[in-house]
């Protein structure tokens, strides 16, 4: 399911930041004022860049310390009250279903997510190497009104 989502919506970017810098773009998206031409020029610029510059300008580096940062993610699986969120990092996070508007968290829903740990990995006594859980940790703050793979349709965004 997740691999299909990637192919359909091209979500393979690094972390999308929701913070003071990005709240402006978030609100313009809500008002339906997305400038499509900006997106296209940025893609063509990206194609000629080196890895060092791609990394330097990535949202992951822009976040700084990744803990306690708000990022946008997408729900790619639900299992009862467990919600699996992909926010563009190495791992996904599994969160409990929020009490408020719990019914909104379906597969494909964009969420705003508070990231607590990029990788749950600690060193236990007597071991040189850390043990990793192969998961991130975080908390879902709220759901946005549109589904992840419909983000590129501005008509849909004006409904907000």
């Amino acid at each position: 399911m997740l691999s299909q989502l990637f192919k359909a919506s091209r979500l393979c970017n690094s972390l999308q930041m929701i913070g003071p810098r990005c709240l402006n773009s978030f609100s313009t998206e809500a008002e339906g004022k997305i400038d499509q031409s900006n997106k296209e020029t940025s893609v063509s610029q990206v194609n000629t860049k080196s890895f060092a510059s791609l990394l330097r300008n990535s949202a992951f580096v822009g976040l700084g310390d990744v803990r306690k940062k708000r990022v946008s993610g997408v729900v790619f699986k639900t299992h009862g009250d467990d919600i699996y969120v992909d926010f563009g990092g190495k791992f996904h996070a599994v969160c409990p279903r929020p009490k408020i508007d719990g019914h909104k968290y379906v597969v494909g829903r964009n969420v705003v997510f508070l990231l607590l740990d990029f990788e749950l990995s600690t060193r236990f006594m007597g071991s040189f190497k850390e043990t990793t859980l192969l998961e991130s940790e975080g908390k879902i703050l709220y759901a946005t009104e549109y589904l992840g793979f419909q983000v590129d349709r501005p008509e849909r965004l004006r409904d907000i």
Partner: protein
Amino acid sequence: MMASAVNFSGIVRRCFKLQSSCSLARNPSFQQQLYHRNNLPRLTTTIRNRFVHSNAVEQNTTQVPSPLEHDDYFGIKTLPTIVDLYKARVHFGHAQGNRNEHMKPYLFGCRMGIDIIDLDQSLVHMQLALNFLAHMAYRRAVILFVLQSSEHGHQVETAARDCGEYSHTRDWHSGLFTNAKFGEASSNRYPDVCVFLSTMSGSYQEHPAVAECAKVGIATIGVVDSNVNPSIVTYPIPGNDDSTASITHYLELFSRAISAGKMRREIDDLMAKQKKLQESSQENRTEGSSMK
């Protein structure tokens, strides 16, 4: 009448320019192969007709170097790109505390406690691995995809089946290769290449198949993350082995390399067959004329 030597590759190149306007595949060499494959009988008839009345010594106009001498026989070098690897999150390594010291040369650095894999190096290693894979597929090798992951196992099985190769995504019973009855007496056969989407097994240990392949002499291609020992992998590819985006991207690249190799095999076999027919018909014609 001396017929000029037919520049076969020139014909193909001119036709390729017509094809290049439509985007059939991203890889231009792929388009060339597609065109070549679809129009081969027509092209070879043209050549044969031009040579029918010639008394001159036929030169070998199809100066194709042997596959192993060619720098990039399958057009594989342009397949992986840094931007695609970046978008597929291949540069994310594990946390610093999980690092295997052998992976240190492949790391770009460590950002906020998370190892970042150097994609410039990953690109080079990926090109080498894909070229090798394509060559093996060209030589009709048996390729085994290996991954022990409940998350991505099914995806690997599907991808392997779709490119006509094999996969093993379940528990590995130790001694599967080293303690097996292979050889003339049995009907079993070792794979020629093992492609590891991750060299870790599900229980945070190195996958036993990596060592078994090394013992038995099977070449391995392996995606090595920052917590893994890449020493005995024949073609290591430093990269993320945990994200679904990365696994999807690797499977796409490997499938395309295998398809390129297999398609080229079909084309070259067809070319060889046509050439044989052409030569035998030339012989018949000269025999007939000498008898007269």
